[in-house]
């Protein structure tokens, strides 16, 4: 058990593992991502109401899911840093913040592009869009705070506290479509109930979600390595 957890505690062990698995994870991520996108864009049927424009879900949905999941990931690392002072945690939080910021931006952008043909507007101050926009600002705020202190330890601890407190907004984003009457549709896929999306569209979507997840994980490996080296050199 200790050997399994070692890469999570020791920076050196983590870097060794990181270098070893990175090419495989990257390959797997690109493979599944492209597979999902190709099947979704070329072979999935046309939507009866939205036509071809619905196909942006193969980018938008994975990005929207991971924009929130990455925040949870960051919060867990923040908790572990504040409680157990795990040395690698600040690098993981920072890497996740960079990727989370990018992913949330892509979720907002793809949502806006989808909004033009379906809603007739690229932006609406509705609950889901606004709360996701706030999530984007939170990522930016975390990066700003982390870069504002010369003392690395102070910066790390303050960043971890903010990330942890910020978790309060994630359930609000998730439930925003249920709590308010919004333009944004409620979730079409769920782990607990039957999904309202046809299987021929759902399968490529699931492959895309898995593919984007693995690809983002590989990106996380790369960024975390860069963050660790940069912090060590500082």
């Amino acid at each position, binding site marked *: 058990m200790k050997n399994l957890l070692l890469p999570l505690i020791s920076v050196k062990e983590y870097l060794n593992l990181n270098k070893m698995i990175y090419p495989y994870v990257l390959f797997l991520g690109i493979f599944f991502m492209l597979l999902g996108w190709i099947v979704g864009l070329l072979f999935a049927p046309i939507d009866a109401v939205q036509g071809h424009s619905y196909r942006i879900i193969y980018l938008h949905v994975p990005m929207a899911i991971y924009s929130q999941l990455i925040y949870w990931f960051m919060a867990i690392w923040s908790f572990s840093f504040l409680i157990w002072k795990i040395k690698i945690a600040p690098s993981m939080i920072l890497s996740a913040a960079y990727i989370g910021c990018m992913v949330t931006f892509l979720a907002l952008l793809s949502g806006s592009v989808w909004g033009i043909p379906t809603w007739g507007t690229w932006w609406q101050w509705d609950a889901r869009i606004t709360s996701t926009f706030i999530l984007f600002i939170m990522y930016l705020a975390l990066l700003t*705070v982390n870069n504002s202190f010369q003392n690395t330890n*102070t910066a790390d601890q303050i960043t971890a506290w903010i990330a942890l407190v910020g978790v309060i907004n994630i359930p*609000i984003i998730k439930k925003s479509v249920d709590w308010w009457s919004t333009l944004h549709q409620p979730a079409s896929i769920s782990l607990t109930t039957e999904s309202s999306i046809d299987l021929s569209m759902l399968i490529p979507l699931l492959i895309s979600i898995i593919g984007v997840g693995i690809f983002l994980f590989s990106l996380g490996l790369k960024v975390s390595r860069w963050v660790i080296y940069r912090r060590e050199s500082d």
Partner: protein
Amino acid sequence: MITELFKLFQRTRDWLGPILIFTMIMIAFPLSLNIYSADLISSFESVLVISLLMIAFISCDGIFNEDFLDGSFEMLISEGGSLFQAVFEKLCASFVLISFPIALAGLLFSIANGAINQNYMIALLGIFFVNIILNSIFAFGSAISLNKGAILGVISVLPFSMPAIILFGRFLDSISSNISSINLLQLLGGTSIITFLIFSWLCSRIIKLHIE
């Protein structure tokens, strides 16, 4: 607590300034509209929420600066005193001298603009509770940005105020529609106590970090 209250009372600008700014916004905003009562009522809630946010930011900006810069906090830690208690008392003093008068002014302007017709006591408490929540959150921002300027604190904690704004919006809606809002008031009250305690503790942790 009494000492903190007295110290804040002596710094007139720190407590009277936010109250005056709030009053001026409340007086000035109808001038930007056509003077039809329907316009005033429909836009009043938004103006009230934004004003409360702004005032919470102004009143908490630099709340810990003086004690941090003159070494009071450092001395308190070296003497084994409780930083949490110091922060707690400081925030309590600001609630008494800033938040409560603002809640009172907010209620008076709500009545004057026709946004609230009854349940005055519930409205007063609701505005006071949301003030406590916002002040606690912005005090956390102020603790983060000690020596770094107010902007850093605001951008890092402003997203946390979102749940409070949502809750307060619902509360104002129910009050103005004369729907029973006692449950929402209880929720606001409970949230304000929890937020106040948690953020006081967080502020003390962050200030300690700065000192170390």
